[in-house]
């Protein structure tokens, strides 16, 4: 059991090597967050390009000392307001509200995801106002080669031998039986016993779909 600790996941070493290679000073590419542009650190924030379907205005929000946040237990540091030029916020106004009948008036103000304002219904309700902390979530780099399951696939092809779509399994059926056995299946002894039964194969063999049939 102790050897579990020694086996390092393949992804870890791969990840750390990338970390070393990353250049922190390169311009942040605008990727998935293109709707919210990010000013480079230390640079005065430019006017933000509004997302195509939201009315946007940049607010140099001074509410670091807003009464709004005074209730916080983890106090915002004194003097924080003076350094407010280190970050900026984006305010976006979206006029989108789902209609809600049967809920009291005070609940009318529903949170709506700003990204979805394309489907805004024509409800003339009060518009919602969102302030986003722009500096946060800065993109260091975008590598499409790391997107999706490509890293996972890399770990897979390095280890398997036969180049099949279903690697490391041989066929779709092979994989699906394995999946069934592990997720839905019986205990491992029961599975082994099933696979050992003579002749059951004939039934399966004669019907390609795997359904047993009667003569």
């Amino acid at each position, binding site marked *: *059991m102790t050897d579990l600790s020694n086996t390092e996941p393949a992804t870890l070493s791969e990840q750390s090597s990338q970390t070393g290679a990353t250049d922190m000073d390169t311009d942040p590419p605008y990727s998935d*967050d293109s709707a919210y542009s990010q000013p480079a650190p230390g640079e005065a924030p430019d006017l933000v390009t509004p997302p195509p379907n939201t009315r946007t205005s940049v607010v140099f929000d001074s509410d670091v000392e807003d009464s709004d946040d005074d209730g916080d237990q983890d106090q915002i540091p004194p003097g924080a307001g003076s350094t407010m030029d280190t970050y900026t916020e984006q305010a976006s106004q979206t006029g989108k509200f789902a209609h809600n009948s049967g809920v009291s008036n005070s609940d009318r103000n*529903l949170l709506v995801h700003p990204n979805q304002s394309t489907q805004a219904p024509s409800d003339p309700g009060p518009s919602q106002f969102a302030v*986003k*902390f722009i500096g946060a979530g800065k993109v260091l780099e975008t590598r499409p080669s790391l997107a999706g399951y490509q890293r996972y696939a890399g770990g897979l092809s390095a280890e398997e031998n036969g180049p099949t779509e279903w690697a*490391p399994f041989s066929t779709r059926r092979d994989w699906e039986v394995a999946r069934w056995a592990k997720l839905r299946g019986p205990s491992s002894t029961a599975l082994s016993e099933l*696979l050992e039964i003579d002749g059951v194969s004939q039934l399966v063999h004669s019907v390609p779909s*795997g359904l047993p049939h009667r003569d």
Partner: protein
Amino acid sequence: MFTPFHQDCPIGTKTHFFQLPKALGLSFSSAEELNKIIDKKLPNGLPQFVREEFDLLGHRYEFYHRDILECVRALYGDPELAECLVYAPEKHYTSSDKKSRIFSEMNSGRWWWTRQVGSYLNCSCNQSHHVPQKELEKEFPGITIVPVILSSDKTRVVLFGTKTAYPVYMTIGNIPKDIRRKPSRRTHILVGYLPTTQLLHISSVASRRRMLANLFHYCFARILKPLEGAGKTGIEMTSGNGVTRRTLPLFACFVGDYPEQVLVSGCKTGECPKCDIDRKKLGDLNTESSYRDLQKVLDALSTLDNDPAGYFAACSKAGIKPIVHPFWESLPYSDIYLSLTPDILHQLYQGVMKHLVAWVTTAFDKKDLDARCRCLPPNFNIRSFTKGITSLSRLTGKEHADMCRILLGLIIDMDLPDDVSPIPLIRSTRALLDFLYLAQYPVHTSETLQLLRQSLHDFHANKHIFVELGIRKDFNLPKLHSLVHYAESIELFGTTDNYNTEYTERLHIDLAKDAYRATNHRDEYAQMTIWLERKEKILRHQSYLEWCLGNAARVMAHPPSMAYNGVLTLTKWPSRRAVDLDEIVTKYGAVFFREALRRHIVLSKHSGPELNRNQLERAILYADLPFTSVPVYHKLKFTTPVDSARTKRLTLDAIYIRPARQSKKGLDIPARFDTALVNVGLGGETGVEGTTKFILAFTGNSGVHRLPHGADPSGVFVTRG
């Protein structure tokens, strides 16, 4: 010989020696071989479990855990979640005047924002263990906070007996709560099984308790160790769309029931784990109290190394049990007393509501209450307690939820013995129920939070009735006190569905109970962890294959909304195709159906100047009904709208209109006519004014061609009951 099964089983005939694996073209011929493939050839999505052993007074204990940072990385980098992760805190307001703030997702709460500001401006820390200033300034601009949400709960893994498991789960707040709460999305990761020992070999009770607390914190600290460094300097993480950001994984919330909270915070049982209120004043809303002072506690704890003699005294002065290095001691930017979150299931349903039901049933006559329970008409969302509610025991949270739905309706006009006015009792019950439902709103505004506070206040203003009736002497219940902290927690971390213990209770089934069942019950943790790893690998590989095939599930977060989007749905064909109009009158109880239908025909045919009352009545009298039967639907459903991401319709509500009948077994099934309140366009958003009560609904679609020319066939024909 083999009847009733297939006849040609060639068992025993060695000539036909085909085996199932070969015939199917399987690459494995036994479970062991399959396991080998999974272990060796499928890549690890999540880190493997590590077994750790330690000695405690001559006994060896083991516990299993895995690298939490790698788990965070895997979750953060999950390609299926890539589209919906959030990276920045936001402030939402109901309008641009910024008067009323909206709280919903975790990133709309104050914690995230202040942490971002704190890490940005780098002065929030007066705590000794925080990072030196210079490093922060250089490294932290543009950092992405990854709030780590932890939960642990001891659970029984067998139905009978005392075998328990102690799993610890982890998830991150960047995932929208709508996705986080779905077990099928696997956003909660099991990061360890804590030892479940009771340390029974230690004879002194006090010392055993201390040891148990130390054991818990030791194991938790081991699990969270990787967060210490990463939370100080930040690490680079790549999300599933290939975008790398510098992230700061911070311990944000601890989700657990009261015993867990006590254990985590190091306070004494019976005290509030979050604030320093006197345990004898827990029931008093107006007692001044403040959050426990983390700095004071940390100072007291730090005396352990320098001044072991004064350690106990210092700890007791700071109001904490003498725990050797609690796990949160060295976690950067964390305040454990803020991190303890409200717990709807245990604090409200299984706590306060349980008490409330007990108080109410003591106050009123039990037989009366049970009789009223039995009289309740069936309704879609209401469970019928046919035995009443007073005799039940060992109730689940769900059963308490069912009771809460009917509680106010049961007692609303009941009399108390000795002519005591029941008004304060009704008010306090209503206030608590209001609190219960308000606390579960998926979206809160500053106003609704005020309503939440107000309802708690209303309860405390009226609770004296329970003392007067001799039911309670005081209200010094930690769970009742915990409601004080709800509004603040919602402001800090978003609404309560961000940190609900119900989700982890659900996880126990997959990750503890099923895992245990898959073992041979000896040295079970070794088997459970391997079973779990294999299962996770298979699931991950499945997602990968689906991605390869191009039909990967696009995970979309649904913005939380309080809107009631019920869509009216009917079966494709009527329940009965032709029901005689006489039967409508007699069996369906729609006495004036003919008249109402004629009126509808007259009104929809009529054009020109408005008819006066006399003319209308005359027209109705002479109107012709060209049919003697109508199709009838027996059920009206309100379901969620079907959109691209949500394929399943959920039934929100249903109305039944069904006359008495006999079942196949010859049993009489009583008629069921649900009451529906229909807003005919005159009513407001709430209240019953302007609505009309109908008990029967018909649609005339199938009989369109038989309606007189010009009559509107599309409407739902309703008739007044």
